[in-house]
């Protein structure tokens, strides 16, 4: 049981998830559904970045692959939407594995920048084959409608789907990071040479971690398509990939429950918190809340302030300084690094 994470914490989370739709409005419930799917995506990226130490700037594209898998299956082949969710994950996971194989050869920043190519290539391919993907015009999915059998709001139905998936994926993530494979991932993160010396196949671990993270993001992408009911290339911009990485850092890379914060931030900052803060400022100091770019400025400043307040994310704050994984621990003053070695 312990391998599945803290049972009490998990229980509290489940209770909160059940309670939320009774407390919040339908629209907030709709937004909280997105928090659930972002949680799944962030868990995946965290397995790669937080636990294996590989930074990716391209995982928005794996969400896109999951989303397009769902869309094409539902729209062109009439498959029922919820059955496409695991398929979206599998397709993204396989493509992630395929990308993971060459990616293992890149170290650190080279990998990060190489992964930058994934969303760019993804968007290019979407536009190149419009007969298959719908091109720029994209594809509309069926609208959300409750399949719970009684007169439930569609947003609540979507919320239930997202959180059922999220509450399956969260323990799954725990199983992955706590098991033998999890130890291998962490040893690769902390020192590839030491890991290799201990008989860990670093290339294999990195490739598999890439595949797993892509699988999680694909599942999240399927949910995304179902919730947005529309996909086109603009829906999966590079910003999305970066936003996911922001979510990881703010949640606290290397923590799974921390991803809850990351997911909240990712969903709410641009659509809700940013405009709300601007409104607040406009009351104190007369500014135009609709000035072009003002929303971005607020988003950026909030991001920066959160980074200053919690350089290791929400999980870092909760855990204190000591328990942080080595690669995220505050570096010593640069001068304290051994000046002798060249």
């Amino acid at each position, binding site marked *: 049981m312990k391998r599945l994470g803290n049972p009490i914490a998990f229980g509290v989370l489940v209770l909160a998830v059940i309670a939320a739709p009774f407390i919040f409005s339908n629209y907030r419930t709709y937004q909280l559904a997105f928090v659930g799917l972002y949680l799944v995506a962030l868990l995946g990226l965290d397995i790669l970045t937080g636990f294996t130490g590989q930074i990716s700037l391209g995982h928005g594209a794996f969400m896109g692959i999951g989303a397009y898998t769902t869309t094409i299956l539902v729209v062109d082949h009439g498959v029922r939407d919820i059955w496409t969710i695991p398929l979206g994950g599998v397709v993204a996971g396989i493509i992630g594995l395929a990308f993971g194989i060459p990616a293992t050869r890149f170290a650190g920043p080279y990998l990060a920048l190489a992964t930058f190519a994934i969303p760019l290539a993804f968007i290019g391919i979407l536009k190149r084959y419009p007969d298959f993907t719908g091109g720029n015009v994209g594809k509309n999915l069926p609208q959300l409608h409750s399949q719970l059998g009684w007169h439930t709001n569609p947003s609540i139905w979507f919320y239930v789907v997202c959180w059922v998936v999220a509450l399956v994926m969260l323990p799954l993530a725990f199983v992955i990071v706590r098991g033998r494979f999890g130890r291998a991932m962490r040893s690769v993160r902390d020192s590839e040479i030491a890991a290799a010396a201990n008989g860990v196949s670093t290339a294999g671990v990195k490739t598999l971690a890439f595949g797993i993270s892509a699988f999680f993001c694909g599942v999240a992408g399927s949910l995304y398509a179902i919730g947005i009911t529309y996909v086109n290339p603009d829906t999966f911009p590079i910003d999305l990939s970066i936003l996911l990485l922001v979510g990881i850092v703010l949640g606290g890379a290397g923590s799974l429950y921390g991803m809850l914060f990351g997911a909240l931030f990712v969903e709410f900052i641009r659509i809700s918190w940013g405009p709300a803060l601007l409104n607040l400022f406009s009351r104190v100091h007369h500014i135009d809340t609709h000035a072009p770019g003002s929303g971005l400025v607020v988003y950026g400043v909030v991001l920066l302030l959160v980074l200053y307040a919690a350089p290791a994310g929400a999980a870092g704050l909760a855990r204190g300084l*000591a328990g942080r994984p080595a690669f995220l621990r505050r570096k*010593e*003053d640069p*001068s*304290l690094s*051994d*000046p*002798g*070695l*060249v």
Partner: protein
Amino acid sequence: MPALLELSDVTARYGQVVALHGVSLTVEDGEIVALLGANGAGKTTTLRSVSGTVRRSGDVLLGGKRLARATPEVVARHGVAHVPEGRGIFAELTVWENLRMGGYIVRRPDFATVLGYFPWLQERRNQQAGTLSGGEQQMLALARAFLSRPRLLMLDEPSLGLAPLITREVFRVVTELNQKEGLAVLVVEQNAAVALAAAQRGYVLETGRIAVAGSAAELKSNDAVRTAYLGY
């Protein structure tokens, strides 16, 4: 008149690990002082607590001036040249560029004097420093340190990885600089015999504390020191 360098009750830590527990020592002008001890005894940390490359508390005084909060660059500007373990050569720069870095804080670096002590550097000036042999690198590090016109030279394990013959040559130059230029030296060494041959005084560190202190002769005759560090 205050001592050139005075450490009193200095504590230093790396993160949670305390490496020095209240070390006190002095170096007088024109003196060579050896710092001996086993691996992990805190020798290197003692030098670092002077140059400011480790978080430390307690008093570090240079010519009576407090250095306890000074950053490495400030300590260097106060006249302390620290040749770290492994020499800290800029391997990708040329020999001459390394020397220019040594004279970084001096308005007009006196290259002529330095080349007088290390004449071979002249012909190697455009060679990449990383391609020098270990002994040559150690010499380059010494020359570079001397170019900053230091009041105190701190050497960390200058003999590390060097053949005995080369080690002797290094210490010959250090002694020469000490005698001709009046340069005070604080040297950390595993090789206690070589160090005590050059030094006037010495300290022995054990697990972050000064265990024994005295003149070189006293230390050489101390039984415990002899069995532990001199090996006879």
